[in-house]
């Protein structure tokens, strides 16, 4: 059990405040260190519940849909999608922004909340980070797949070549390439570093030779020595520091794809903060959706408590309101600017042929999350499940509305069109959920889905002074 020493953090004790505010403990149940380890590593080391296999088969099927769609796409050309000469981006880039946005919650939870010493994050940060990486993997499909000549996708990278041609550094798409690839790299490293002590735990408890070897390699020879912990803590902190600006920068740069262009409805300065808020909003909604399932499926209600979910719902209502503010401000600026094209673009969103999409977006993103002001709603599992899914639908529509309604009617009325998705647009998007869930299901099955070493630090057992009361765990919320 050498690998599971508690974290060396010592925040101020606020048991009085906790009692005062009647806050629930971060971890519930009677788990001590040992039972926690049993529980988490048990998921990895024993046979999964039969439900897992069914879900995995479903996910793989969806993944095959994605694969088939992409093969067809490369074989025939992107004409299989519903795009036209006026609307050149639609479900593809909507899917890209959607998935990149989803990823943001993971980074926010693992990095920013870590820096702010939000201890409640420990139960969910591992899964949220995994979600980030898988979401970025899904997102990465689209910028590649939407290319007319996929086989030259590498030209987007500044690879030295015999023609001495460099990419165009003025193009937001190039900034995207850097932003997203940096994000993917840092997130993956951050996640992996955080996994090391837990991987060592699994290695130690593994019974089969293969598992011992695989996990042995993955945990990079972790022995749990003081020096290991010291380096680990430092590395983790550095990665948290590196990731923090990424939470803000990645979606800012994604928003530049639109903001830097001259298309009315895209060309707005509000986009960076609006996109970041939206990203966190959608990301938290996705985490809630997944956690509601995962805690039930793997019996982790004690670790991922209603309190965790409630906190996330608070973030959802906060960011949802920000997004709502952005919607309102967009309209105001469009009117206030006096720019006819801008005014038209927004009037067209609200009242034009895609008004159904706009109002879907507004109700899902602004109206329904407001229900989380009520404690009853934000602590109700069914309610938060429904609302979190609605938020994700709404956020998909937000990107769709921004991209398609702006493009389909821009400057010259002669070129106005109406975009209709083809079956391949849909299969490429829904298929990406196959990739996401396949990866996520593999993750919950084969890796410790809760950050064991971190969670132990916030259990009652880890607090030498708090044994007299269950309510007196560390918390700083």
């Amino acid at each position, binding site marked *: 059990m050498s690998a599971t020493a508690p974290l060396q953090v010592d925040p101020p004790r606020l048991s009085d405040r906790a009692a005062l505010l009647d806050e629930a403990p971060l971890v519930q149940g009677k788990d001590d260190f040992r039972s926690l380890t049993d529980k988490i590593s048990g998921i990895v080391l024993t046979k999964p519940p039969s439900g897992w296999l069914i879900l995995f088969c479903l996910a793989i099927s969806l993944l095959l849909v994605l694969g088939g769609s992409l093969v067809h796409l490369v074989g025939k050309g992107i004409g299989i999608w519903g*795009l036209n000469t006026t609307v050149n981006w639609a479900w593809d880039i909507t899917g890209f922004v959607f998935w990149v946005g989803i990823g943001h919650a993971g980074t926010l939870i693992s990095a920013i909340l870590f820096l702010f010493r939000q201890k409640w994050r420990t139960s969910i940060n591992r899964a949220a980070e995994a979600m980030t990486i898988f979401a970025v993997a899904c997102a990465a499909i689209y910028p590649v797949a939407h290319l007319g000549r996929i086989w030259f996708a590498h030209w987007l990278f500044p690879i030295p070549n015999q023609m001495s041609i460099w990419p165009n550094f003025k193009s937001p*798409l190039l900034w995207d390439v850097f932003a997203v690839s940096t994000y993917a790299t840092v997130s993956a490293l951050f996640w992996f570093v955080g996994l090391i002590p837990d991987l060592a735990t699994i290695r130690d408890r593994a019974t089969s030779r293969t598992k011992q070897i695989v996990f042995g390699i993955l945990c990079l020879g972790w022995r749990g020595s003081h020096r290991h912990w010291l380096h680990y803590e430092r590395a983790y902190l550095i990665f948290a520091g590196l990731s923090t600006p990424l939470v803000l920068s990645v979606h800012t740069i994604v928003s530049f794809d639109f903001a830097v262009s*001259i298309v009315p409805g895209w060309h707005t300065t509000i986009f960076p903060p609006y996109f970041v808020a939206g990203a966190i909003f959608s990301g938290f909604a996705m985490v809630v959706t997944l956690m509601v399932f995962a805690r039930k499926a793997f019996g982790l209600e004690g670790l991922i408590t209603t309190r965790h979910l409630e906190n996330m719902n608070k973030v959802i209502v906060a960011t949802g309101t920000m997004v709502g503010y952005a919607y309102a401000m967009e309209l105001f600026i469009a009117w206030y600017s006096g720019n006819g094209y801008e005014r038209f673009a927004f009037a067209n969103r609200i009242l034009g042929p895609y008004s159904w999409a706009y109002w879907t977006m507004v109700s899902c993103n602004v109206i329904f999350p407001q229900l989380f002001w009520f404690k009853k709603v934000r602590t109700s599992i069914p309610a938060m499940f429904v609302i979190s899914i609605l938020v994700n639908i709404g956020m998909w529509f937000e990107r769709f509305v921004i991209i398609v309604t702006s493009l389909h009617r821009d400057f*010259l009325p*002669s070129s106005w069109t109406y975009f209709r998705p083809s079956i391949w647009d849909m299969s490429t998007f829904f298929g990406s959920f196959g990739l996401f869930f396949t990866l996520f299901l593999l993750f919950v099955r084969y890796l410790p889905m809760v950050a064991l070493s971190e969670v132990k630090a916030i259990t009652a057992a880890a607090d030498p002074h708090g044994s007299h009361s269950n309510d007196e765990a560390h918390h700083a919320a």
Partner: protein
Amino acid sequence: MKRTPLPLAQDISGKTYWRSLSELAGSPDFVDALGREFPPAAFEPPEGVGRRTFLSLMGASLALGGLVGCRRPVEQILPYSRAPEEVIPGQPLFFATALPMMGTAFGVLVESHEGRPTKIEGNPKHPESLGATTLYTQAAVLDLYDPDRSKSPREGAAAKSWDDAAAFLRAEGDKLRGRSGKGLTILTEAHRSPTLAARLADLRKTLPEARIVRYEPFSRDAAREGARLAFGKPLETTLDLTKARVIVALDADLFGTDGSPIKQARAFAAGRAVDKDPKAMNRLYAVESTFTITGAAADHRLRIQSRKIPAFAFALATELGKRGVALDADLLKTLEGKSGGLDAKATRHVAAIAADLAANRGLGALVVGRSLPKEVHAVAHLINLALDNTGRAVRLVAPFDESREGPEALVELAGAIERNEVETLIVLGGNPAFDAPADARFADALAKVPVSVHVSTHVDETSERSRWHLNRAHPLESWSDVRAEDGTASIAQPLIAPLFGGRTDAEIIELLLGGSRTAYDLVRATWLNAEGAKRTEQDLRRALHDGLFAGSQLADEQVTATTQAAVDALRAFAPAAAEGLEVTFRPDMHAWDGRFANNGWLQELPHPMTKLTWGSGANLSPSTAARLGLKDGDIVTLSGAGASVRIPVVVAPGQADDSVALGVGQGRRAELRVGRGVGVDTTPLRKSDAFELAVGFSLEKTGAVAELARTQEHFVMEGRPLAREGTLAELEKDPAFAQKQVHVPPLLSLFKEPNRRQGHAWGMSIDLNACIGCNACVIACQAENNIPVVGIEGVRETREMHWLRVDRYFQGTDPNEPESIQQPLPCQHCENAPCEQVCPVAATAHSPEGLNDMAYNRCVGTKYCANNCPYKVRRFNFFEYGQPDSESRKMQFNPNVTVRSRGVMEKCTFCVQRINSAKIEAKKEGREHVKDGEVVTACQGACPTQAIAFGDLNDQTSQVSVTSASPRGYRMLDEINTKPRVTYLAKIRNKNPELADA
């Protein structure tokens, strides 16, 4: 495959050229080949040639560069400006020839690359072309390479050789001579070929009993017959609108389908050069039932049913009579009784137009449409004579052929067949089984003829019912000649040996008469010996070089009114009944009378007013559609005159109420890979007695809906200052009114902008006041730049590839009575191009000369540039569009323009290949700069009205600098800081103050 060199006769210059060593050595194969007109390989369709063989063929022809390649025509042909011995691979040659159509002929210069004609330009010397082209002349080059063209003669369904066919024709001729031609009927198109006419005259001599019939589905019979009524002899009307201040077009599509569109449009635009002299601006009144481009260009357009236009014309005559115009009193009395039934608006127009015409004696032109009855033509002839317009703007010349060519001819012929009077029927071209009047039942009659021969480029509806089909040579691959409307004669010289071994009409008559002269000999015979004046070889060479015989135009005919005949005819004239819907038949814009149905360029070319592609519909006015509960695309059963067709409704603003405009020419049933089944065949509704206008029709909704393929769905400008226009009064008040329609703030750039004021700065100006929206530029661009067609599905998905499009906006409050403005839109080559900044791989970048270049092979296809293009001129290859559907189609490609692959963005390049070749020429001559006028873009070259100017903006004296500096000039969307290099010149309408609120 055995390849035999083509025999090449002695060159005019006296030199002997040999094509191969075997020819030089006189090998047996070669000697054998000399006896045959065409080498065996020439008959092989490129279809049947595998890719390797094709490539080796093409490679070989390149290698034999000095010998032009394997498809040089057999006889000498003369290049327009350079001798054939100068043929250099990669250097195009231009040959002058002429293409007959619309009752006239268009002189053209055909660009030929190593023996392949690739592009057609107008012949500046030819009065019908004036250097420009119509859309149909542009598209003719694609027809040449149509893979569906028939490859050999056929008897029944069996392919035959030309030897068999010639033997058959000679035997048939022998038989006919035995009975002096009794039972023989020759059915020709309304051809204007002196050589064919000479052959037919010979035939008349040899076979005096033979009957020769002319037929054209859209003939100009009524105009000629109208002249017969008015002046006692049939005359051809030819317009010189440069001499007209007031032009009144009664159902006459002057710039579209009514013949001589280029000449008329050029003259019309010349009379509207408001920057030079606004006072001299002409005024055009269009009185029409369907919205044509002539109506769109008009200063005043009266929307009126076609059946009421005769009354309108008569009222106009009456009104002119009241104003003291010397019209016969009897005539006026007769007309007065027949000019009723006009509404208040029409009456106001009559008064205003009459006043305008009377005030501009000798400076007017009353033009009556081809489709109106001869009585209306007669009245117009008399009015023009009385107003001294005849001999000025309205010229009358002797017709090419006095015989009738309308539907009656076919009804008579079908009757003769029924009476078993026709034993041998030779149909020279045309497709009467498809386009004959329905009551002639010509297709059935044709099947009853014992010996029927159809000479045609395709195995079409007529060929299928004929015993023999003889494959006809395309005008670009055969020797022929043609007279234009005004008599100007041209020799049509072949640009390529017949691809599929076809022959000409004259050759077939020659064979029938037992002769064996080739088309070349026949044409030479016509022009060297016949026609009175003895011409020398030198004259012939000059005519070939110039593309016309100088001075061959006809003189004006002196006329005196034969009023009594006109009065008698007018007394008997009964206007079409007012009951039910009226139906007007017009040549389908895409297919003309059906002959272009298999032409993908034309099928995909948006109709100038409805923007419809790939199909046809019944045009209805918005209010009629609303009254009948019909929406755009609803399929209806249109019935009347004992027949009905199912056809989609096209709601067309500007259409007269209760009037249905139908195109004729679509819905072909022959084996055509492009044209078969496109659109609806409306010929069953077209009867000989109501061939142009039918009444008493009704519509019934079927409940089915068709998805029409349009390239533009939104026709309102949304109050945006895009295509700007004003009235002459506004212009005189403030010449720069157009620039003031939008506030352009001070513009800054994020990036350091390069100095654009050195070297060349290519720019374009487009005069909306001259543009008539005829589409010739669009198809010229397509031909020049290897632009693919995407098919009906592609257009439905808005993926058409045209680099240059013509935007059409409607204005006005009443959707039934819109004014329309046309705006050609190429890439604007913005100096501050939004597309360039966003391309991640720098595939689109600015050239030092200000071109917004596309590096196709760098493009990865993010399409971001297209999203960010405010003009939406970028076109994306969503699929592998560039791949031609046949080997023969490949031969049309312009070798100087890359064929784009799938996944690549493309757009207008300002014809960069032409700029570069001009620069190379300049460099060879040691000049640093290209001179103004040396670069002509494809669109500019094709434009009938010279609305497009292109050149160097850094050259202050260049034409484009001058036009761009016009006070009417504005740059579209300048306020968003794109700095476009295209300047639009606002459209000006010369409103008649008397009709200010009409």
